[in-house]
């Protein structure tokens, strides 16, 4: 019998598991397929990494986050695994070929679902013995979820082709409907799979939202909050350009070190900003939702949403990036009336207009090779008639608008915000929760947020960048010389 705590210490130097981790690994060791719904920052990477270390078997991880997959590789390497590779469409032909012909050299293989759908690629994978098949962000398989990826629907079939390896499905938030959807789309009967579903609630995160009159007053409030809130923070935006612009302004106005970060950045600046944030050399990051996937920073004290998130699920995921150290942390959602239109517009733009849809149905060759038409191609390949696809899109669009309205209802809530979020996941507030540290319904946060800040949010030690300005000193510190 393996002592998991000993193994955890041996491989990672940790003395205890985070909630849910041990149960998932025990399930895997007992060869039970597992669905793990663990909150953001719950340590999902460690699940398969430790299993791989203990079992010495190969782990294939399907992940949709192509632009961040290399970060995941770095993260695994950071945690001590060396034989790691990512196989995505961003590689050129030669690179892809070199990796495919040496797949057996790697213990951890990240692969995008698109890549696995390619018959030539799957042929290489079939020659391997796969000890664990991990489906990360498993909610992408659900057509009803905001992140639906048609290629995920092939994963059930791919799993069959790989001789049904032991499977771990992971996601941070999934309603019961989406959990069911994940299992059925992957071809599992409910009784074949062990579920480890942790509560969504994070009692150390205080919840608040503010209706601002207009964008100007929202900007003023943001500036004031960023100037005074203690500790590291993330501000989420719906657009890259807004994130960049606000980072510049806050940098000038607040005396804090603020930088933008988003998936569209080149890898080197992204790496530097990640590292600076981890080393407390940057106070605040203005990010799009791409941020945080490769980051494991425990002491983020606040998350502010400048734009309305598209759903409660996304909101819960994003605020989950603060307070991983279990210390008091703060989630703030800023809202002004136009935000609703922005999100509605984004949702509407996500769906093709009738004219375009009709054109594509008449010219199906145009559906191939264009990422923007992937979902349409999926339905076309499933022999959906033009009327049926239109109806389906209308239904999904309606579903998204309903989710957005739920988000809006959260902002406008006159009752307990925590109860409002938890009801979405069929959860209830823990009876042990301190009502004074819950949300701005129970505590007059907006009148006394500065007091709240002083009382609860810990400052991070200041790292002064200027102290290292001499290039000779930097070189001396970069290379520790033995003599």
């Amino acid at each position, binding site marked *: 019998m393996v002592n998991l705590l000993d193994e955890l210490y041996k491989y990672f130097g940790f003395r205890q598991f985070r909630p849910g981790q041990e149960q998932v690994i025990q399930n895997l060791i007992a060869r039970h397929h597992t669905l793990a719904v663990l909150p953001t920052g719950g340590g999902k990477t460690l699940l398969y990494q430790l299993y791989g270390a203990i079992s010495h078997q190969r782990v294939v991880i399907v992940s949709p986050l192509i632009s961040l997959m*290399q970060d995941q590789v770095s993260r695994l390497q950071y945690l001590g695994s060396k034989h790691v590779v990512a196989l995505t469409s961003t590689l050129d032909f030669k690179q892809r070929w070199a990796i495919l012909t040496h797949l057996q050299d790697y213990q951890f293989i990240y692969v995008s679902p698109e890549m696995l759908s390619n018959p030539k690629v799957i042929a290489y994978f079939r020659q391997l013995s796969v000890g664990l098949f991990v489906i990360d962000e498993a909610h992408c398989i659900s057509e009803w979820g905001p992140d639906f990826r048609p290629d995920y629907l092939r994963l059930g079939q791919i799993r069959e082709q790989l001789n049904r390896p032991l499977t771990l499905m992971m996601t941070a938030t999934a309603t019961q409907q989406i959990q069911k959807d994940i299992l059925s789309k992957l071809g599992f009967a409910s009784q074949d799979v062990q579920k480890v579903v942790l509560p969504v609630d994070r009692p150390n995160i205080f919840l608040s939202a503010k209706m601002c009159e207009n964008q100007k007053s929202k900007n003023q409030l943001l500036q004031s909050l960023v100037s005074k809130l203690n500790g590291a923070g993330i501000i989420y935006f719906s657009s890259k350009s807004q994130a960049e612009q606000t980072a510049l302004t806050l940098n000038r106005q607040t005396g804090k070190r603020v930088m933008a970060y988003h998936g569209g950045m080149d890898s080197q600046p992204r790496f530097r900003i990640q590292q600076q944030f981890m*080393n407390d050399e940057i106070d605040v990051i203005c990010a799009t939702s791409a941020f945080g996937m490769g980051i494991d920073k425990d002491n983020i004290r606040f998350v502010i949403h400048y734009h309305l998130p598209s759903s409660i699920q996304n909101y819960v995921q994003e605020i989950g990036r603060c307070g991983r150290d279990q210390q008091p942390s703060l989630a703030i959602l800023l809202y002004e009336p136009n935000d609703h239109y922005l999100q509605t517009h984004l949702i509407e733009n996500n769906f093709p207009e009738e004219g375009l849809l009709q054109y594509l149905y008449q010219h199906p060759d145009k559906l191939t090779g264009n990422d923007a038409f992937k979902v349409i191609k999926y339905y076309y390949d499933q022999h959906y008639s033009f009327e049926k696809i239109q109806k389906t899109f209308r239904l999904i669009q309606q579903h998204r608008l309903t989710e957005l309205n739920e988000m809006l209802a959260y902002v406008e809530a006159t009752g307990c915000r925590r109860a409002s979020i938890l009801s979405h996941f069929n959860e209830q507030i823990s009876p042990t929760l301190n009502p004074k540290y819950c949300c701005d319904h129970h505590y007059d946060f907006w009148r006394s947020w500065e007091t709240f800040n002083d009382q609860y949010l810990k400052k991070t030690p200041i790292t002064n960048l200027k102290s290292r300005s001499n*290039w000779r000193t930097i070189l001396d510190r970069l290379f520790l010389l033995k003599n």
Partner: protein
Amino acid sequence: MNSADLFFIFCDDQQFRRAKAIKNILIGRRTVSNLYWALEYNLLDYVDSLHGINFDDIDHTLHRLQQQKLLLLDDQMRVKLTTSGMMKRQQILSKLLPLKYLKIASQYDVSRFLQRFVFATQIVSEYSYSNRKYYPQSISFFEDQLIKKWFIQNKGQQLPELFHQLLTDFLNWVNRDDLATILVESLSGHHFSGKTEEQISNQQQVSPLVIQICWRQLYSCLLLEIFKKKVNEPLTALTTNLRRPIISNSSRQTYDLFIHHPEESTAIIASKRRIKITTVYEHLIEAAIFLPISQFPFQRLINPQIMDKLEFNQPALLGEWSYRDAVNKIPQLQFFEFRLYQILRRKQVNGKST
């Protein structure tokens, strides 16, 4: 990236220069038209030296600079600097190493070398602290393999001392603290994250483009410094496969066929190479632009009578002579002949002036 400083660096107050062509020359869009303008503006040595930089909308930038009276802009988006523009030019150039060092980035893939060197520095730095637990940088698969292999083969060679010495000697040679800081801030290693170009540009009060050019120049010189070392030195392995051909490989093949088989027409060459005849012409123009006059048989391609007519009709500003005007005077003139004639004369003028 904002392109404003590009025009200060690569334009002057003597000649109207095509803004778009300048940008394209520097980022390496090797169309024959761009290459011709590179010849005309004496920028052939800088082709592709700013490879990989994404510039934003240059029209908007140029109109802003025109409003600020830093440059003159004509209706063909050609640029000439004003007196204030020339002063600005001097300011920017004073922040850089002498511009000639950027030419090295046209001959070698310096941005690839930069990525390799920065990654190697991180590995060596962490190694010097015996730290195995760190986030390695993400670079392309083959580069990653190359650096890891290099490190495994050389880690017994006192790499921390070697890197420290190399960089100290090099930056002493550069002999400017501002540039030395710009270089070391591009590195990262043990408990040192480095800075982004945006952060350094704020600190140094210059544009991000100037930081990029400084990096290209500094890493170009560093690359040459490593080339001077013995072949079996650990650092030389970081410089493999960085050489760039002056003439593209495909153009070189066409040119070789043309030179070694004088009996074959361009149509036969096109069929042998399985390319269009117009592509053969483009390849030959590229060769004519880059090679010395003595190595390119202009006379074989320009009919002597046409050559006489071209000489008779050419205006004083040959570069600005349009094919349309020329063909009005010489109806049987082909564009290919016209362009080759311009190249020949420009090269003759450049040869006399140097």
